[in-house]
């Protein structure tokens, strides 16, 4: 029983950064903007979170720094694509490339240093309950944030007027503009929210998952988060399910490597990436369904006419 609980806990830890980054990107894409810079914002959050936690000794300050750095970094993307109407695909790519480079440079002196780790929740009495105690009351704080965030985004998108407006912008920015909605302002806020989420996801990696700084430690998780949004057909609860499936794949291959299964470890390591491809193929096979779900102005630059 203990082993099962432990495995479930590690799956949750592996799924949390994917979930947070994907939920952030979901909001961005629902507003009609495709930000391929998730990997870059995430790694900036990771290095910023580690650095602030390491220098101040407080993982909580690290957490705030990760969120702030992700948000500030996404602002670059917002200015380019929203104010200067640049190509979103190319700009997102350059954000990722810049993030990987900058984080490598900023983190040079952090390599090999022991970092600060966010403490797990520990409620006297509750956490000690067998089996469910640790699952419900003994995880890291970001886990709870991720679940709350998913619920909040679900509520925001589908139960509030602002959420409806945001979705309408994603489906037709010209109509929204004609109705007098501030398209660009909404999109700025959405992009920055996505950046803050990606930064938080990166902070989870360097403050909880492996509390140290390793170059390129996001290892493609930002891209997998992007794939998750497509997989989820832009629906928050499906992102949650997808993130946990991927968390399970990630942990499963690590356990398989540890058990010494007679399969090359590289093959096991490539499973999350191969699984991403398979899942994308399965979900996009039905062309009509995909077109129905995709925000209609996704990825198209918008310049308000005056």
């Amino acid at each position, binding site marked *: 029983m203990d082993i099962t609980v432990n495995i479930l806990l590690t799956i949750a830890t592996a799924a949390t950064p994917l979930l947070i980054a994907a939920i952030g990107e979901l909001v961005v894409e629902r507003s009609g903007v495709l930000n*391929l810079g998730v990997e870059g914002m995430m790694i900036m959050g990771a290095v910023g979170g580690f650095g602030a936690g390491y220098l101040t000794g407080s993982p909580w300050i690290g957490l705030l720094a990760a969120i702030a750095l992700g948000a500030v970094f996404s602002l*670059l993307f917002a200015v*380019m694509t929203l*104010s*200067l*109407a*640049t*190509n979103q*695909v*190319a*700009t997102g*790519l*350059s*954000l990722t*490339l*810049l*993030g*990987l*480079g*900058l984080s*490598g*440079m900023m983190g*040079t002196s952090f390599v090999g240093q022991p970092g600060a780790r966010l403490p797990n929740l520990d409620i006297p009495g509750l956490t000690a309950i067998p089996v469910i105690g640790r699952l419900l009351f003994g995880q890291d704080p970001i886990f709870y944030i991720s679940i709350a965030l998913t619920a909040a985004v679900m509520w925001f998108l589908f139960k509030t007027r602002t959420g409806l407006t945001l979705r309408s912008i994603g489906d037709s920015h010209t109509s929204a503009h004609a109705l007098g909605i501030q398209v660009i302002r909404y999109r700025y806020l959405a992009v920055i929210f996505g950046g803050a989420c990606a930064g938080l996801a990166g902070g989870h990696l360097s403050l909880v998952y492996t509390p140290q700084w390793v170059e390129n430690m996001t*290892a*493609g998780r930002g*891209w997998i988060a*992007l*794939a998750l949004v*497509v997989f989820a057909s832009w629906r928050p609860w499906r992102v949650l399910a997808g993130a946990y499936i991927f968390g399970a794949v990630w942990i499963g291959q690590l356990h398989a490597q540890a058990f010494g299964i007679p399969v*090359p470890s*590289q*093959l096991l*390591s*490539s499973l999350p*990436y*191969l699984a*991403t*491809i398979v899942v*994308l*193929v399965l979900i*996009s*096979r039905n*062309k009509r369904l*995909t077109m129905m779900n995709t925000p209609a102005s996704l990825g198209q630059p918008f*310049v308000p006419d*005056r």
Partner: protein
Amino acid sequence: MMRLELVKRPQRSMLFSALSPFIAFVLTIIAGAILFALLGVNPLKAFQIYFLEPISQVWQLHELAIKAAPLILIGVGLSVCYRANIWNIGAEGQFILGGIVGSSIPVLFPQFEGPLVLPLMLLFGMVGGAAYAAIPALLKARFNTNEILTSLMLVYVAQLFLDWLVRGPWRDPKGFNFPQTIQFNDSAILPELMPASGRANWGFVFALVAAVLVWILMSRMLKGFEVRVLGSSPRAGRFAGFGINRMVFFAFMLSGALAGLAGISEVSGAIGQLQPVISPGYGFAAIIVAFLGRLNPLGIVAAGLVLALTYLGGEAVQSALGISDKVARVFQGMLLFFVLGCDTLIHYRIRLIGFAAPKLESAPKLEEAR
């Protein structure tokens, strides 16, 4: 608080079309100067080490050509994709597969020597890269799967595959357990161009030839026209009878073949054996090269040389000033940012508007108009 406003130009500005890469370069220099100053280094001294010292001697120009060759080869191929609005960002993986498939000849048949070896290796490299690029193309054409994500995922798979090969079945049995294959025999090594003055090899010539050929393809042949039409207006392309799916395969496999050629040229020219890592991110840097060269094959040659210099400069400041050579990646990322930003000037005029200024022209009231 200020606000930017874009005003569409009646037609694209030729002036900014030509100037934008240069403006972007100047902006990168300025941002770089700030970066160096923040790192506590005199920017002038840093720039001298970064941009001038790496190309001050003849043998160093050879090193520049070695670094520029793969960037140009890959960038030229990617430019065709991007013109067709097809987003292959997995060139790094196609580069690696080209290196692996091309190397299969000298690794598996070390006794096989003679003038046939190299051409076969190069061919295998191109086939390997093209075949690997055909995977995302097939998935996009057949299942409508987003090619950005699949091609990128395949990069990680390719890196792990190479890692497995050189630590497992292809490891040199006499190599003291180092993760590398045997050294290639002499007939499997890409010859140097001018051995007397430096190490540059035929890879650079391949790059120039590829750039000219693709330039002819894009500007003088129907296929190039097809690429541009499908890229700018898929609907018009369909009416003209151009097949989008065929174009997906064409663009992916052409760029894959060129990336594969770059991979095998790098392995057989600069390295001489397979190692766990054979590319310092050429496949991603080439994306920047493609855009900096304005998706024009001849512009890409120049852009490839610039990006190659950022790699050499990064190494130079690392050894001279003790700054991480990651600074090269930062320069490359900034360069792409500024290029994309400057490209806006081609299509738009930019107006700065203060919020205090009157925002609305006094529109006539409805009653007055009546």
